[in-house]
């Protein structure tokens, strides 16, 4: 069950509900589930519902709450009474998403150096990286980018001293204690260990993002041939 949130305004058209103060996969999973349900209930005047590690932000239209009342106070009151109806309902089981990754070679140019820096073999790194289950705490940075928790501490690796001007979409990287997939061609400073043929962000699809907050993710090693076949299928 979620603790009662503390509310703070974020300007005059958004507020933040804070449920805790430290990163915890179980807490962000609950916040993510709450965000999904709230979105489905289509609350009046609310434009965006944005979960993060310990918070849930509501972006709202102050003109939607009628004259006289404070839009901020009205929204909090509505949200609090909605929250009361939610505490008893069990959490829906999170989705399990598998992301195929072709590790190393041209797709993961930093894999060998990363393995060496940890006194591991390339096979060890692949086994450790694909052996864990990761949790999507939240999405941000660029469309479809998931902040994943759960990287094995043995693989934590500093970012590149100089970020690359161009990292191809689908690249799987490690930056500090985090791992993740670049959804778009962007500049990037993470150590790149592989690439997925999946498109994580498709603007014309519904939903446009493969991942959502609360999902569990596993990386599944694939070979170059399968990568080529699946790239073709995804295009």
């Amino acid at each position, binding site marked *: 069950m979620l603790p009662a949130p503390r509310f*703070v*305004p*974020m*300007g*005059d*058209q*958004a507020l*933040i509900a804070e449920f805790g*103060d*430290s*990163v915890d996969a179980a807490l962000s999973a609950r916040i993510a589930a709450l*965000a999904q349900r709230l*979105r489905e209930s289509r609350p009046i005047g609310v*434009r*965006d*519902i*944005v*979960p*993060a*590690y*310990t*918070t849930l*932000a509501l*972006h709202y239209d*102050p*003109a939607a709450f009628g*004259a006289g009342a*404070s*839009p*901020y106070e009205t929204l909090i009151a509505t949200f609090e009474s909605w929250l009361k109806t939610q505490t008893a309902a069990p959490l829906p089981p999170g989705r399990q998403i598998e992301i195929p990754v072709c590790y190393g070679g041209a797709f993961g140019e930093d894999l060998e150096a990363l393995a060496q820096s940890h006194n591991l073999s390339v096979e060890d790194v692949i086994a450790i990286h694909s052996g864990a289950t990761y949790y999507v705490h*939240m*999405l*941000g*940075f*660029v*469309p*479809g*980018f998931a*902040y994943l928790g759960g990287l094995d501490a043995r693989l934590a690796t500093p970012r590149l001293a100089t970020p690359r001007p161009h990292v191809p979409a689908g690249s799987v990287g490690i930056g500090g204690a985090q791992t993740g997939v670049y*959804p*778009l061609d*962007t500049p990037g400073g993470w150590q790149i260990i592989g690439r997925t043929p999946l498109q994580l*962000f498709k*603007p*014309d699809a519904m*939903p*446009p*993002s493969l991942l*959502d*907050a609360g999902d569990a993710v596993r990386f599944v090693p694939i070979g170059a041939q399968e990568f080529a076949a699946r790239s073709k299928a995804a295009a």
Partner: protein
Amino acid sequence: MSISVLKPGLLTTVQDAGRHGYQHLGVPVSGAMDFFSHRIANILADNKADEATLEITLRGPRLRFERDALIALCGADLAPTIDGIIAPEGKAVRVRAGSVLDFGDSVAGCRAYLSIHGGFDVPVVMGSRSTYDTARIGGLDGRALRRGDVLAVGSAKSAAYPGLSRALAASKRSFVAPKWAVNQHTEKLGRSLQIVRILAGRHWDAFAPAAREALITHEFRVAPDSNRMGCRLEGPGLVEGGADVVAGGAGEILSEAVTFGTIQIPPSGKPIVLMADRQTLGGYPKIAEAASVDLHLLAQLRPGDRVRFELVSLAQAQALWLKREQEIITIREAVEKHLTE
């Protein structure tokens, strides 16, 4: 109906009221930076509120209208001309097929908005036509205009301002406009020193009193690397004894949502006001948020212009916003009375 892009200008993009409802997937809202000028331009062109306009930044494009069109220009005064004659702002304008809209140097403000009756016919992506070029979505192929582009215009839905059409037919001029105009306070929009009201942010109390004091007493200068993502300010650094408290030394907080107008203090101590293309989450302490009613003033500041912040309460900021909404409704009703003329 279409518009040919003879010259693209510095940064000309299709924008509307923004891409709401996808921030949880990391998709920025985008949309017009000066959303008031954008809305008034749509009202003048007898468009629905959700149509897109062209956001024109500092140095404008050169555009040719391939058919007669009903347009409006609002926001910054970027010295617009039609076939060499000064083009009016804040007015409905009927332009003749073949005429060319051009711009000079910025006279006042940073961003002008061009609306056209029927709207710009670009695909709706996730509920919006707004251009977000980092992800190449919205607008024309997800990017700013380029020379040689052809912008499709939606079909006209009304016979607004029949008198203007008759006047154009009876005249040899490239365009005609009525005597009346919407007062869009261009003189205020174009000031090089703006007072922008702010609300205390989530980490206001965690900043040292001196840092808070500096934020509301000093003038800040708009840095040249400001853009649609953020208005970067130069002035007294606000870090000392401030952000460290928030961050336990690291100058960062747990990433969480940010909004249009969030004033972040990164480790440099130089404030960044997050604007239309901001990322959805941020990891720097939030000292304040700009009042929404004043965001368009920030959007109109040019590099080198100055801003001073004034603290207001949440209740004041929301009352100001609702009052402005009422003013826009009044403007719309006034314009609607002219539509049949």
